[in-house]
């Protein structure tokens, strides 16, 4: 349960650090919390991590679109900070670290994982705007 608090804090703090407006800060935290919940609950059902990343991104994407309408801001305002807890930066870094240690097998495994993970997030993120935005 502590992880949900950390997800909220991460997203809200990153919103401040990326120069978000004050009223967007709690909203970003909320979107980050929901995205993390989508990810964490999917994992708890024993489903694969890539699917969890997809569900997490989908959840936070929907939250971002709804918040964007409510607060009349672009969805990017909430989606970028909320994505931060889920993003595969650490996996890519670990891959590169393995490369520096000449553990080529680990490096290939982690970098490929980072790429697929980013793909799952991107797929989850691109659905909500496509479905919810009608012009």
């Amino acid at each position, binding site marked *: 349960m502590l992880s949900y608090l950390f997800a909220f804090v991460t997203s809200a703090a990153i919103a*401040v650090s990326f120069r978000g*407006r004050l009223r967007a800060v709690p909203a970003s935290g909320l979107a980050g919390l929901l995205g993390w919940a989508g990810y964490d609950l999917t994992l708890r059902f024993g489903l694969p991590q890539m699917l969890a990343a997809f569900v997490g991104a989908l959840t936070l994407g929907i939250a971002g679109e709804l918040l964007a309408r409510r607060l009349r801001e672009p969805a990017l305002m909430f989606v970028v900070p909320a*994505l931060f807890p889920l993003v595969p930066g650490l996996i890519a870094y670990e891959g*590169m670290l393995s490369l520096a240690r000449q553990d080529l097998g680990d490096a290939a495994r982690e970098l490929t994982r980072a790429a697929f993970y980013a793909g799952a997030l991107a797929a989850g993120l691109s659905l909500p705007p496509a479905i919810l935005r009608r012009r």
Partner: protein
Amino acid sequence: MAAPAQVLSVVAAAGELLLRSGAEVARVEDTVGRIARAYGYADVEIFATPTGLFITLGDERHTTAMRRIAGRTFALDRVSAVNALSRELAERPLPPADALRRIEAIGAQPPPLPAWATPAASAIGAAACAMLAGGSLSDFGPAVLANAAVQGVQKVLGGLKLPDAIADFAAGFASVLCALTATRLLGAAFGPVVAGGIMVLLPGIAFTTAVRDAMLGDLTSAAARSLEAVMKAAALASGVAAALYATGRS
């Protein structure tokens, strides 16, 4: 109808500011197109990439502007303000000189929260995110300190105008030194503190945006962002690896 050169200076300024503030290329092309149409130029070609912006208005002389984008840092308040301005212009186009002044004012506006809030929030956000990646609560404080130290190093090196890759290498190096000190003095776990130190610099968002751009067909942007992400991860990891080697922990 306003002269093409004037309209072009407005749309180019808006697009450049958006790209510098971390907006996706699809949004930039959308916004630039909307402003150009507001001034009566329905026929406009826009090519935005993370490193450059090209706009051609479809007047009889095909007036074109090109802008080089040197660096990208997230400034969500600016993206939001330019977005709002573009909607305002679509309803009621201001004289181009006024619109340009508005865009320049957005580019110069200070952060919406006090200056100390940004580094403090980065440190807290980074430490919290490192906890998500598998730290325990007792590592939170050391991770905040490591991040503060890394931000200090980045600030000093940024002042020296060193290339980003060097600054990232130094950040990775500094993060390991902080983590070693924290393990020794405070008994913190090593990995989460290193991660907390460099968390905000890790290219997770760039990686994800790269794949998203590729899905949308913005292939040049996708390639540029992936390369940026790979370079950044490599520089950080090299710094970490060098520090591990230098301190005999590899």
